[in-house]
């Protein structure tokens, strides 16, 4: 714009269809705006974000009618970028722009039209005052590291890793457990097609293990994360396996020779045992055993050491210690999955009191041919159940535990009903609140189960008891529930009850969330950037989420998200470099008194004290634009682009001047 003369501000008020115009009297606001100092033009339009809407702005700029822009519309997080772009298209610097949020903060939350209009006016006034002080800025270009990190080796993480690797990117896949595979590796069949989980998962796991572009860091956890989009620095703790990975060829002799074979297997949910030296399951990737230090006699009294004696390659290393590896990556996909609900929290279901009340995960292991019972569905005494109850919504849709619907339970409960019926011929009773089969081919599966003669009782299981009321109930578990469609209370004696437990956020979700600077939604799952339009992005650029860590999900949805998140990470990486918001701090050296207040405040070490010149030195490359130092600087030497003291003060004046 010309050096001399006033700013010429254009104010554009959006109707957003009826979203804004219904409450806010737009013409009134426009008239008000045009009366404000320096406002050259005030216009209104149905949808400012539409092409014609943007065109209005661009034209006014090209015609030289305005040189700064204010748009009053939805939240800036929605369309600030859009209108900055329009401003740029019109030939002005994109940062001579100010956004006023009169939808989320006004029309959608204010009942009274007049009050809404007044509030909109004062926000517009503030934006006008602030844009008058806006300065042209250049965006900073930063290179993007072309490595990617995937956290979590479940099906979502596996998919993400493969997509990235197949595109030629180097991927680090970090998994907490000794092997990748996640929960899916425990499952038997998958709904609705009933193909076996292992058959479709293990090939993927092998691909991952063999892929030249994927480095699997199993039995490892992320310690901490620093840096920013395109340039993350991640420290990973590689927990000691007490196995020399370079020497071990996974022959499994150590496992065979380990004399202590009675440790409850985590992978089998404690239904079976494993040795102290073990692989969680035969198809483990990487194919490396782990020594369970806690239970190993050698670590207790130096005796035994059988594994070491027999290992043909001398790969056992009792001296091994945790290692820290440092990774530099441009993008991160978080796929840390879920934790199954602890069924013992519902006392009336008797989980823990009744041996034949089991959880869905336990059932998956039992039904799995490679599982503790070799795929036989049996009770604790080894006999085959004649009647089996399946309780839906255990720990979900319940304000005492989790109020959300866990989305997958209905379908896997139907799958269980089929497996039980198929393998034992038992009568199966499904107790449900609402049958939710929304998914391709899911409803058909429900109908198939009804045709198979599964009993469906619409009513939540109220209680599972072993106290009989009639002779037929003697020696059985009894499920008590109201059959709400009939309107009577029923008591149904069964031999076994399967509790369809909810998916919960991982126990350490909060720590993970904080390490990566993510937010979480009310239910504790990681928060996506937008529930519809950006389900796998997060509010932190360069950090993406996939699978059940974002919310309960079945396998197809987790796979889709894994691939989607990977694609987003890929497009970020492949852009090679990216523009950062130019909201960094800047220093006016003459004003700096050298008090050093700011130096200690900066979390990114962007500020250092220059001993010769007795002033601070600011490294803008390291600055992330929080503005903490600016607020603290007593002499006003430090300011923040886009958020200078004067600009903010001007905005304050604005909102107050027009109450």
């Amino acid at each position: 714009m010309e050096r001399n003369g006033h700013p010429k501000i254009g104010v554009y008020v959006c109707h957003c269809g009826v979203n804004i115009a219904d409450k806010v009297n737009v013409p009134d606001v426009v008239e008000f705006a045009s009366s404000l100092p320096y406002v050259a033009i005030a216009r209104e339009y149905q949808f400012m974000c539409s092409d014609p809407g943007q065109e209005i702005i661009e034209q006014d700029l090209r015609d030289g009618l305005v040189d700064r822009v204010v748009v009053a519309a939805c939240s800036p997080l929605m369309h600030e970028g859009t209108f900055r772009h329009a401003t740029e298209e019109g030939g002005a610097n994109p940062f001579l722009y100010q956004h006023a949020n009169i939808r989320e903060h006004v029309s959608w939350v204010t009942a009274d039209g007049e009050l809404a209009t007044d509030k909109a006016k004062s926000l517009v006034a503030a934006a006008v005052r602030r844009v008058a002080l806006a300065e042209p800025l250049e965006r900073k270009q930063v290179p993007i590291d072309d490595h990617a990190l995937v956290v979590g080796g479940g099906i979502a993480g596996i998919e993400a890793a493969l997509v990235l690797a197949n595109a030629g990117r180097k991927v680090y896949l970090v998994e907490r457990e000794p092997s990748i595979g996640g929960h899916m590796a425990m499952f038997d069949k998958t709904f609705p097609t009933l193909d076996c989980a292992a058959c479709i998962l293990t090939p993927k796991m092998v691909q991952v293990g063999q892929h030249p572009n994927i480095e699997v860091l199993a039995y490892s956890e992320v310690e901490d994360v620093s840096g920013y989009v395109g340039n993350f620095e991640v420290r990973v703790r590689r927990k000691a396996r007490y196995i020399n990975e370079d020497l071990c060829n996974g022959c499994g002799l150590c496992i065979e020779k380990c004399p202590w074979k009675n440790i409850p297997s985590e992978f089998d949910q404690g239904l079976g045992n494993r040795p102290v030296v073990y692989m969680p399951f035969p198809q483990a990737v990487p194919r490396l055993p782990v020594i369970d230090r806690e239970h190993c006699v050698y670590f207790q009294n130096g005796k035994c050491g059988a594994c070491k004696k027999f290992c043909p390659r001398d790969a056992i290393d009792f001296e091994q210690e945790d290692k820290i590896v440092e990774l530099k990556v441009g993008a991160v996909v978080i796929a840390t999955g879920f934790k199954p609900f602890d069924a013992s929290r519902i006392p009336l279901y008797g989980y823990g009191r009744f041996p034949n009340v089991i959880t869905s995960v336990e059932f998956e292991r039992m039904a799995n041919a490679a599982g503790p019972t070799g795929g036989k569905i049996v009770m604790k005494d080894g006999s085959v159940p004649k009647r089996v109850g399946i309780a839906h919504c255990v720990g979900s849709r319940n304000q005492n535990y989790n109020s959300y619907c866990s989305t997958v339970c209905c379908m896997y409960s139907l799958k269980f009903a089929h497996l039980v019926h198929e393998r034992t011929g038992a009568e199966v009773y499904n107790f449900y609140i609402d049958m939710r089969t929304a998914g391709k081919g899911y409803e058909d599966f429900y109908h198939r189960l009804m045709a198979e003669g599964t009993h469906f009782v619409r009513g939540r299981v109220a209680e599972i008891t072993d106290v009989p009321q009639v002779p037929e109930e003697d020696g059985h578990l009894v499920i008590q529930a109201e059959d709400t469609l009939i309107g009577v209370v029923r008591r149904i004696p069964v031999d076994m009850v399967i509790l369809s437990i909810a998916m919960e956020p991982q126990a350490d979700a909060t720590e993970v969330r904080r390490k990566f600077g993510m937010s979480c939604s009310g239910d504790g799952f990681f928060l996506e950037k937008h529930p519809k339009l950006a389900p796998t992005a997060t509010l932190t650029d360069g950090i993406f989420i996939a699978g059940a860590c974002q919310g309960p999900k079945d396998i197809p949805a987790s796979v889709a998200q894994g691939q989607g998140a990977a694609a987003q990470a890929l497009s970020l990486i492949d852009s090679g470099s990216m523009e950062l918001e130019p909201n960094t701090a800047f220093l006016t050296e003459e004003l700096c008194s050298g008090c050093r207040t700011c130096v200690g405040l900066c979390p990114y070490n962007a500020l250092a004290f220059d001993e010769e010149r007795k002033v601070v030195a600011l490294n803008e490359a390291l600055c992330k634009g929080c503005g903490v130092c600016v607020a603290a600087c007593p002499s006003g030497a430090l300011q923040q682009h886009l958020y200078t003291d004067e600009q903010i003060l001007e905005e304050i004046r604005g909102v107050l001047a027009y109450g």
Partner: protein
Amino acid sequence: MKAPPFLQGRITYENQITPDFAAEVAAIPGGEGIFECLQCGTCSGVCSVAPYMDYTPRRLINMVRAGFKDEVLHSRTVWLCTGCYACAVNCPAGIHITDVMYALKRLAIRNGAHPRRYPIPVLVSEFINNVRQTGRSNEAKLVVRVALRTNPLRLLKAAPLGLKMLRSGRMHVRGTRIEDPQRLNRMLESVSEARK
């Protein structure tokens, strides 16, 4: 236009229900949760007397929401509730079902809809008189009065038990009283006055 005779009582027409009944119940402290109900039936399932109710608790709550005021207030369900709180502490929707039952009992009485010679409301009113007179309740007196007002023959049936209790000194015939029952009554009056 009236419903054809053969449909009388088989179809519920909108003009037969009380649309604002739900709001009325929800406005009572304890009733606020009813709109959260999932109709899962947990309340009925854990209730030890549900099998004897004319409507299960779950069904009753839905009838409240649907505005079936007469049916609800005349039902015996609320009077059978022993107040054991099994439903309330189990409700996935966090509804204070027991409090809802109390609320419905009060509404039934206020609307004179409670079943007349049904022993439970009778017990309630006798209990109140009892407390109003002495500030305490006297079990023996209560039992006798309730029997007299509902089914005097029961007194004969109960006689042996009564004797047993007398002999074991577990029946206090006269009953005791607080120092100043009148003062207590005045306080109670002023309390419900303040609420109006």
